[in-house]
């Protein structure tokens, strides 16, 4: 779950990481009031998209009138195809230098890693390899001060700024671990006359750990159907095509989409309803797909824990109750295959042995209809 900047900064504040004085607003009038209180301000659109500045979603204002005007402009714009609902109005910092600091997970090393650089404020990908210091952390000892000193030495940082890092980094690490973050990024980390201040916040919380953080706000970045799928614990992603795809397992679902593309078709979605699905769950997944008004339905089942007869039953259930009047291409093999096929044959649905045949048939069907 990605957090909006203002939510990330709230968490920073809770962990005693310095952030600018700010107000969160939803109208030009509120923006003007905030500017009257804060003086020179920066107005930042709160959307879950990078490159807000380049897209015109960040503006400076030196009086309430300007703040009102800029807030109105940003609230009315589409920013990278997103609507802007909230603005963060923040005191303008006196920035001497822009740095970069983040904690993230290194999958290859299987541990958290500190990323630190003197080159902040730009896209992290643009920082030269040697200018980005990476320090993996053994979670059994956690972040120690010697690590911060070493990171500073490698960045070429000493004296007062090093002391600032020794104060700041343990707080960020503590937050990263305690809140089950996947990413806690400060870019830029601003060096001001008052010390280091987090001028931005990019925080992502691990979805799998949200259950132990009931106090955290829930941020929705998904479409209604994606949210519905999430409630059902079905992995679902909307795509642009017209062949609705349903399969069991993330890898094989991706491979099915690849094959659809290979044969010249276009998938409407990624839907993995997982292993060991019940009749009920199969039916729910199907209903979800039918809600997208696809032209063709492609079902690819290789049953391991998943039982073919149960999938077939789920299909028939939805067909009888809701009616499935679009063409279907059904591949069904694995556990209880014969039973599953018998159930489908009774209602006149033919099944395929191979994924290849089923996908080609689905693509043919879209061309025919």
């Amino acid at each position, binding site marked *: 779950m990605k957090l909006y900047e203002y939510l990330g900064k709230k968490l920073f504040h809770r962990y005693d990481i310095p952030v600018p004085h700010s107000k969160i607003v939803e109208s030009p009038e509120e923006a003007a009031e905030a500017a009257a209180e804060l003086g020179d301000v920066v107005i930042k659109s709160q959307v879950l998209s990078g490159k807000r500045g380049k897209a015109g979603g960040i503006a400076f204002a030196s009086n309430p009138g300007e703040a009102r005007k800029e807030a109105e402009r940003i609230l009315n714009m589409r920013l990278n195809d997103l609507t802007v609902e909230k603005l963060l109005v923040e005191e303008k910092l006196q920035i001497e230098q822009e740095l970069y600091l983040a904690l993230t*997970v290194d*999958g*290859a090393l*299987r*541990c*958290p890693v500190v990323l630190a650089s003197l080159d902040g404020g730009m896209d*992290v*990908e643009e920082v030269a390899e040697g200018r980005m210091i990476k320090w993996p952390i*053994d*979670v*059994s000892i956690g972040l120690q001060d010697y690590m911060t000193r070493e990171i500073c030495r490698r960045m070429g940082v000493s004296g007062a700024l090093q002391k600032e890092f020794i104060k700041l980094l343990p707080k960020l690490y503590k937050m990263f*671990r305690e809140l*089950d973050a*996947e990413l806690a990024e400060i870019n830029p980390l601003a060096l001001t006359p008052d010390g280091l201040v987090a001028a931005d916040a990019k925080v992502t919380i*691990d979805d*799998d*750990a949200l*259950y*132990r953080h009931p106090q955290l706000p829930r941020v929705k970045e998904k479409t209604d159907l994606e949210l519905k799928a999430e409630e059902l614990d079905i*992995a679902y*992603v909307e*795509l642009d095509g017209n062949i609705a795809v349903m*399969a*069991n*397992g*993330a*890898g*094989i*679902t*991706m*491979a099915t*989409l*690849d*094959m*659809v*593309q*290979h044969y010249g078709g276009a*998938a409407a979605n*990624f839907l*993995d309803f997982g*292993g*060991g699905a019940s009749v009920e769950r199969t039916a729910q997944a199907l209903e979800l797909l039918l809600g997208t008004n696809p032209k063709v339905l492609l079902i690819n089942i*290789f*049953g*391991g*824990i998943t039982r073919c007869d149960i999938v077939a039953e789920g299909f028939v259930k939805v067909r009888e109750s809701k009616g499935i009047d679009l063409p279907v291409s059904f591949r069904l*093999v*694995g*556990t209880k295959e014969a039973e599953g096929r018998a159930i489908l044959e009774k209602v006149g649905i033919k099944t395929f042995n*191979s*994924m*290849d045949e089923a996908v080609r048939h689905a693509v043919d069907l879209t061309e025919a209809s």
Partner: protein
Amino acid sequence: MSIFINKQTRVLVQGITGKQGSFHTAQMLEYGTNIIAGVSPGKGGQNVEGVPVYDTVFAAIEEETVDASILFIPAPFARDAAFEALDAGVKLIVLIPEHIPLQDAMDIMAYAQKQNAVIVGPNTFGLVSSGSSKIGIMPNRYFVPGPVGIVSRSGTLCYEIVGHLTGNDIGTTTVVGLGGDRVVGLNFIDVLRRFEEDPETKTVILVGEIGGSSEEEAATFISSSMKKPVIAYLAGRSAPPGKRMGHAGAIIERGRGTFESKVKALNAAGVEVAGLPNEVPAMIKKILS
């Protein structure tokens, strides 16, 4: 021969009395796995499919030698159960559950490293040495002995490939599922190294997907340290950037982990990448002939 596990490997099932635990215990026993004990707190003294159940891992090892453990434990409790097995000295642990929090997974990996233990998963189908031992949840009938080693990030896709092989009378030595999460224990290189040393494995199939850089790292290893021929299949050619395709790792972020970069790295290491799963048997036949 096979890698990691064989007929003698003595297996413990943690969470043996649950629905998944008991079902897969029966399946593994049917396959021939040497399951010697199960653990389920509060259920000590019972038995599942004839396997004695203990309250704790320590209670089990007082009675039996344990070489490996497989966990059928709900994600919120998986870290505790994995720590218990590691503390008790189990050296191979298979983490079946999905949705284990990332920070928990990192804690498990750190402790496993200290205990010199191997972790498979989380979010894996496990591993099987065909014809001798299965520590996992894959369907029994497709895994027949033969000369091909397989290492895969995803489950059902791996079955799909194995199904094509079995349909062409090609069997496997060992099939290892690495798991679909961002942090997993065994990686491609760990498994490729073992296949390279295993005299019965003649060739290896790597089943990867978009996201992360583990296929690229595997390519570097293959070109520097492997003599055996390797082929690959990769899922996610058609995936749009920024969309997480079910697996935690399967996402193209900031232009990294793309299908093209993986194919390029693998091709440069002499690894041919199959365009479709059904092309794999012919490629393997060519290598074996």
